[in-house]
């Protein structure tokens, strides 16, 4: 299992389109991907779960990836979050 602590840094937070990007990326991998805030954890392959987290800007999140391709999955998901989902 690989674990990463990150912070949502784009201005709009984990809004619908950003969440969709995250879910699409996570879904490309075999590994199970869990994303958590202090309050709740969600399946990162589920759009509703990720939206329910309601993670706004500056919210700390934890990624926990478990499976055969976890290293690649963590790298891509981290790049996406750190890169602010390609937004300003």
């Amino acid at each position, binding site marked *: 299992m690989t674990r990463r602590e990150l912070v949502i840094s784009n201005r709009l937070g984990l809004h619908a389109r950003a969440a969709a990007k995250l879910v699409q990326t996570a*879904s490309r991998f075999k590994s*199970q991907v869990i994303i*958590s805030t202090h*309050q*709740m*954890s*969600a*399946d990162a*392959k*589920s*759009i*509703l*779960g990720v*939206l*329910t987290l*309601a993670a706004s800007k500056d919210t700390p999140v934890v990624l926990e990836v478990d499976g055969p391709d976890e290293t690649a999955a963590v790298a891509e998901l981290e790049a996406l979050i750190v890169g602010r989902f390609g937004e300003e």
Partner: protein
Amino acid sequence: MKVLAGQEVLPRMSAGQFLDRFAGLELELLAGRDGLDREIASPRIQKPGLALAGDPEYIHPDRIQILGATEINYLSRHGGEAQRKALEAVLCKGVCLFLITKGLSPTAELLQVADATRTPLIRSPKTSSFVINVITDTLLDVMAPRITVHGSFLDVFGVGLLLVGESSVGKSESALDLVVRGHRLVSDDLVEIRRRGDGLVGRAPEMLQYHMELRGVGIVNINDLFGVVATQLQKEVDLVVELELWREGRSYDRLGVEEQQISILGAHRPYLVLPVAPARNITILLEVAVRNLLLKREGVHSARAFAERHQGRLARRDDEP
């Protein structure tokens, strides 16, 4: 025993949040404003009684301390240095908050020590019994241990059915199928379960309520699409079924004589693993699992009855010459 995985939260409430939450008790803050970040960690209240007479050993600092007529009258009659010492011994334990009832007046010592130790001192005009009832009732609910799990939760034939399993195993699709067949959705994707006593009540996180994501269609609202009879606000968890892609080599329960249980926040519920494979109609299987649970509750255990009949037949064969 298997334990249901999820994010467990032990809810707490700060003294400041308490003031907001119980505004109906007409609360006023008399002293200890600096301590409003102190946390209440137990839904039970305590009356400090003996502690004020100098025996503070059994004070639970994480509980709300109620100062009613007994306590306030005692303090009023035993003023001065002795009272200050007794109060300091209690308040230095970091008590989350003191609540004076019936609109009684605190002694000067109480006000001073509360301020000095940053202990919130709050007053309500209501009687102790009323205040205690309201607080305990609400806190038992608010502070119940809770867990958020990944899964779909439905009312099927009046039974609370929790579907768990890896993502894309078909939880949402099965849930939709069950709704179409007249059962009621409580929550899809994430389920918040609270434990009260041995009861486990599941409901949707507020944001999510009655929504479902169907791959290829998007997010839909079951309440709007199917009407109020297709959804339900909350439901007791009665049965947990794990959907799993059929794995070659794994042995699934073939008899159903033994019953597996799963632990959710320490409470136990019947648990089945249902393999998913082509040509297996999961919805029908789930309905049958629920019917079978209802039957067992009535005292009819089909698998055991069959096994006993079989055993009897074998025994009779042994008797034959």
